[in-house]
């Protein structure tokens, strides 16, 4: 049997969302394992699995507005956020595997929560297509990614405020909520999932990463904790083996 390092195992289970250590050990190894972009040794971690090029263009532009790169540091796009969402859509989450997805389907009250027939991955596919179609009709043939930042911000605000109803099956607000939730997750999740590259999100706020022992530090009231940032797969801050 091929030797699997602990780090590889962690990364592999992170990316496949496998239920347990043993589950992933027993799980089928991808046929093209050596060139699989999900594996940590890959030279190019940004080979997308789910999204198409137009979708990536939309997401790159949207994430650059939702969490912009500025003098405080890299934003969501620059820290791998689009790749993070792509990998999530290719995971059990994107397929809504844990969700109750049986009908009948009805519109509920807002207190009753999500009642769309769409998985997250389907919501992105339909939502992005609808936003781009809407932009083309409003902005003389331009897609969202081709707009200036002020217009992009306006479109995002309209989605967020529920003013842009795209399609009967993909209300703009639901699409925006999913987009913002996943952007936010990617920016602050462990870098092994593909976002938060080089700990961009964690360094922004001062979170030192998951650490084991603060017994000697918790009583040092008011003192900034100075140990270097660390992720579950080490100090590299990247999905690539460091």
């Amino acid at each position, binding site marked *: 049997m091929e030797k699997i390092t602990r780090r590889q195992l962690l990364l592999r289970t992170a990316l496949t969302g496998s239920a347990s250590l043993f589950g992933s050990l027993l799980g089928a190894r991808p046929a093209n394992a050596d060139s699989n972009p999900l594996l940590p040794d890959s030279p190019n971690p940004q080979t997308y699995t789910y999204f198409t090029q137009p979708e990536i263009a939309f997401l790159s532009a949207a994430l650059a507005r*939702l969490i912009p790169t500025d003098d405080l540091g890299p934003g969501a796009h620059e820290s791998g956020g689009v790749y993070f969402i792509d990998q999530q859509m290719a995971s059990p989450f994107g397929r809504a595997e844990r969700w109750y997805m049986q009908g009948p389907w009805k519109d*509920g*009250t807002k207190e009753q929560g999500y009642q769309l027939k769409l998985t997250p991955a389907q919501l992105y596919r339909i939502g992005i297509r609808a936003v781009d179609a809407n932009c083309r009709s409003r902005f003389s043939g331009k897609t969202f990614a081709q707009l200036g930042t002020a217009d992009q911000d306006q479109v995002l605000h309209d989605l*967020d405020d529920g003013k842009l109803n795209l399609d009967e099956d993909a209300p703009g607000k639901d699409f925006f909520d999913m987009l913002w939730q996943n952007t936010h997750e990617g920016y*602050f999740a462990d870098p092994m999932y593909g976002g938060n590259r080089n700990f961009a999100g964690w360094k922004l706020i001062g979170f030192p990463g998951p650490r084991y022992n*603060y017994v000697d530090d*918790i009583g040092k*009231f008011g*003192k900034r*904790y100075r140990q270097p940032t660390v992720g579950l797969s080490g100090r590299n801050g990247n999905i690539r083996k460091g």
Partner: protein
Amino acid sequence: MAKKLPSTDVVLVGFGWTASILAHELTEAGLQVLALERGGFRDTVPDFATTYIQDELRYAVRHELFEEPARETMTFRNSMDQVALPMRHLGSFMPAAGVGGAGVHWNGQTWRFLPSDFMIRTHIEQRYGKNFIPEDMTIQDWGVTYDELEPYYDKFEYLCGISGQAGNLQGKIQAGGNPFEGPRRRDYPLPPLKRSYATAKFEQAAKEVGFDPFPCPAANTSKPYKNPLGVQMGECTYCGYCEWFGCGNYSKASPQTTILPVLLKKDSFSYRTGCDVTRVNLDGSGKLARSVTYIDRQGKEYEQPADLIILCAFAQHNVHLLLVSGIGKPYDPASGEGVVGRNYAYQITSSVKVFLDDILNPFMGAGALGQGVDNFNGDNFDHGPHGFIGGGYIALWTTGGRPILQTQVPKDTPKWGGGWKKAMAENYLTSTEIATHGSVMSYRNSYLDLDPTYRDVYGNPLLRLTFDFHDNEHKMSRFITGKAAQIAQAMKPRSWYPDQRSGHYSIVPYQTTHNTGGAVMGNDPKTSVVNRYLQSWDVSNLFVMGASVFPQNAGYNPTGTVGALTYWAADAIRNKYLKNRGPLVRA
């Protein structure tokens, strides 16, 4: 056709806290015990290793330790005139799946309820008069008193190695503890946890405004601890990953860290995972349970006979099982008659966000590291001028500073964009929040029944939850949030704002997993499903554990009381029921 298996003495449905306690107690009494768990097995090694479990996305956000709505969920509506729709993914509460149950992923906030909580109707009527209780409020006494439960609270606290500071030792009020708690026979097994800066600031501020702060009782060990079963726990390292995670350090009490090392070695105990119990089967008389039916992960159906059957699943799931099995009279909100599904309750929470100038390092924490005040819980204050019933604790918890879910930004910060980013950078290390944890009373129109439309993965009807917050709860929550705001202001913040719950209850945002009722205990079979020993009034070899027996909800986390009631019931089974099998209380 179900395959019939050889009979055993006791079958436990579920394998979390209550099942683990019962399994230990009943095997000690010489019985053969089998636990059937719908989820999988997991243990400290290898599943909760600290370099593996501290993964906020996987566990806290993607819910890996919890139940999957795809297999089993419930439908929800605010009122009877609405059509209930399925809870398609988890939100407001997080039932667990897997060995250890929610005892794996809890924070460890381990309280005793107040003596008056257990006799709430009698107490309120005596102090304020009968008219003080609204007509549609169906609160009732528990049928058991604090004094009766006290030894069992003690037993659970010593099992877990609770860190805390006594406030009332045998009637004598202790400085620095909770002066409102019921008398306890002895001190907590361990001293309080270390303080975080935020909790130290809260303590000082709460004193300044005239309240009585104390260290909240914690199932996180402040020191190494060996429990009465001989199981060793280690000192908590304040890593900040309790809630939604298993503990890799043997520092958070769970079945895995307190009971299983002893239980799993016993020949008289066995468990099976991946088993969904779908029915409790009765004999011809309808007065005795004969067996349970379960389906394994291959879809095979089994019938497991047992002399004694105990429901140890999550609160709503116990009620669901009673309803689909036709045990007890289902509750009818129109007539007010029937009992199964009656008196569902929840809790109402709020917070006050506090933005300070000092570095607080919120990521150094523990699930039950907190300072609390109990001045406005239960009936610890005069409700006369306020016109509501109930209360809650106010506490500042430093449970951790996980970056996806545990951050706050000042009011009026943009939701996204550069302004939001700047606010995150400026406030993460210097902000905190004060929580209120309020009771919810039971009402005629808050209940559980079977959904007429939606089905689970086996084709059985889903449970239907009909629930909303009532004026009484909103009034109470506004009142205690105002008290929390007084403390917040005394912390001399740059800014602060209350995050008050208003309007209808929503299944969407996480609030608390403290769902109660539906199979409530009591002294009258017309208003309770189980008697004071948690034994079914209708089927004497069936017992029901957990918060489903609470007749209404108090202003505390429920696990301490769930643990105490389980030991109380185990004692009754061992010392009363096994000697004379039959109803322990005559109806």
